[in-house]
């Protein structure tokens, strides 16, 4: 079991963008301009989504300049990677310089940092089943160690046309609704109110069950993460934020804000996901 548990990881803000995409993709430029207050040149959908989510999270507030950025994505900037690969292998053209640079997923971190004046540490991190949890855990670890006092934790996933082909890429059923999404949280070491005190990984279900025994079922709801459809563990009350939501890889990142929007004061969500191979990840959100 690995864990990151701290006394202070207070939720300063959160922001989301989710849009189901089935035909013509939503034009993100006006949304980005309206959200950020200005256009950003020479970026594609992936970076635009990351910026929209981060701007909605910050709501015009200015985070400390040493705020760190932890960013996760299921598959990075599909749009620019597919464009570069088609140019190279199908059309026989070299990549455009900026397209090549933006194939690195941490380009999104750069634009978030630049847009909000941040110079703290910056990390793009992934894990097939636990992307959001890995980003959250590193942020909690840095907050606990005092390396940082403020963190932005976010995700972005885009859809690429043709959507039917993109469904295949994501191993989704032919009729599965797909979405584009970005979710961001702003955590600080000092504060009051809602918090994300804990994020842990478990090598087995037994390890997870042993830890879950310490939670009060009257004040704790089970957040139903990926792969948990038929498994309720010892908590009778559940929180389902995935039903009715289109599929995108970093859907777990939607859980904290979805819970915070609906929960009563003092309630805790214990969110659990599994990779389908017996490993689990869990985090808690306290309203």
């Amino acid at each position: 079991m690995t864990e990151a548990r701290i006394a202070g990881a207070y939720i300063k803000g959160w922001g989301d963008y989710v849009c189901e995409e089935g035909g013509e993709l939503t034009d993100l430029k006006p949304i980005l301009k309206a959200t950020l207050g200005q256009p950003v040149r020479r970026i594609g959908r992936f970076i635009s989504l990351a910026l929209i989510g981060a701007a909605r999270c910050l709501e015009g507030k200015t985070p400390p300049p040493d705020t760190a950025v932890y960013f996760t994505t299921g598959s990075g900037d599909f749009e620019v990677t597919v464009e570069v690969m088609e140019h190279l292998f199908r059309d026989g053209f070299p990549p455009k310089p900026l397209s090549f640079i933006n194939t690195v997923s941490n380009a999104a971190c750069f634009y978030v940092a630049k847009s909000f004046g941040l110079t703290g540490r910056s990390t793009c991190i992934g894990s097939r089943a636990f992307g959001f949890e890995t980003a959250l855990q590193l942020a909690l670890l840095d907050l606990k160690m005092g390396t940082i006092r403020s963190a932005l934790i976010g995700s972005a996933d885009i859809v690429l046309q043709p959507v039917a082909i993109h469904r295949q890429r994501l191993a989704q059923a032919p009729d599965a609704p797909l979405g584009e999404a970005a979710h961001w949280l702003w955590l600080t070491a000092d504060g009051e109110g809602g918090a994300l005190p804990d994020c842990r990984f478990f090598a087995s279900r037994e390890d997870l069950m042993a830890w879950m025994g310490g939670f009060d079922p009257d004040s704790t709801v089970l957040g139903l993460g990926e792969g948990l459809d038929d498994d309720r563990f010892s908590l009778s009350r559940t929180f389902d934020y995935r039903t009715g939501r289109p599929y995108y890889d970093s859907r777990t990142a939607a859980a904290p804000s979805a819970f915070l929007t609906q929960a009563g004061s003092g309630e805790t969500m214990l969110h659990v996901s599994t990779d389908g191979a017996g490993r689990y990840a869990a985090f808690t959100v306290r309203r």
Partner: protein
Amino acid sequence: MRRAWFHGAGLHTSLGATLSDNLDALPAGPPPPGMTPVPLGDSVEAVPSMLLSGLPLEDVETRLWRALEPVVEAALAGSDLTPAQRARTALFLGTSSLDISVTEAIYAAALKTDPGAHPLMTNAAMGGLAEAIARRFGLRGPDYTINTACTSSANALIYADAMIREGLIDHALIVGLEIFNVITALGFQSLALLAPSGMRPFDAARAGLVLGEGVSALVIGATPGPSGFHLRAGANLCDTHGVSAANPDGSTVAAVMQQALDAAGLKAADILAVKAHGTASLLNDEAEAAGMHRVFAIVPPMLAIKPFIGHTFGACGLNELLLVCGAIERGCLPPVPGISAEPGELGLMLNQTWVPVGRGAFLLNYFGFGGNNTSLVVAND
């Protein structure tokens, strides 16, 4: 307070297929790069490169694993982990290009039978490769894929070290991986950043970089290892000057070096030697040199590893660290004769002879696209 000590390691670069082979090759000096032909439409582009020794650029779909498996096996074998420890070991994969070489080969093959084929139909998940490595080697701890361009595996080490210090894990396997791929090769070609004559960091004649391939693995653990080396501290900051170049005034480079020194509880004068990032590009060497002069009143001996193995991008953090630590364990800092032999316009000299070195602290720099700047302080005290 817990520390994370270096244990078993493996390394495969253009110099050799084992860490020992790599270290044995250093006395011969930086070898000349080769030129790798890369088909592009009806033409062929020649790309300066330093490919993995003994592993021709053939059967690309399996080549990544043929490179990776022996390196990881060597690191695990050198660490004496019990089966239970191995099962709990966390994996930190630091890479810029992941398994895009495999994805490219699959797409190129698909286009031969179907001109309308789509790319990225397999291997699309960023965490897929790490999960496969964990499964292949029986690791059931969490797996993390750090994708911060050329700082990836250096940042992977920082986080693995922090988790051990905090008692979250007892062992971590850090893997640096960069395998030749067309996107990277022709991407840097399109940026006009490649130098057919080899890498000459900080030199007046510097003309850019050479693509390097490298696979490295290091196990770190909470108990002392055979080498005595450990990460004393690390720092990572974001430089928003530009997405592909550090601030040329050196301020952001100096900031990350200073933060690493502060975290290590050291002064600049305590550093015995500096391993430069040294991409030999005009702007980034200018920024690194300016940063060095801001931090060091007297610049300690500087060495550069990229002339030996090329720029191994996301893997360079761990590749270069293993070569530096290994050379120090053998008692000397490796020279790059004839490269930055005199302090030129940037005012820096690189190490020109085999300089004996003892125990102490060493600073290693890494800077990447996306403004990602990282400095490590390693020590064998």
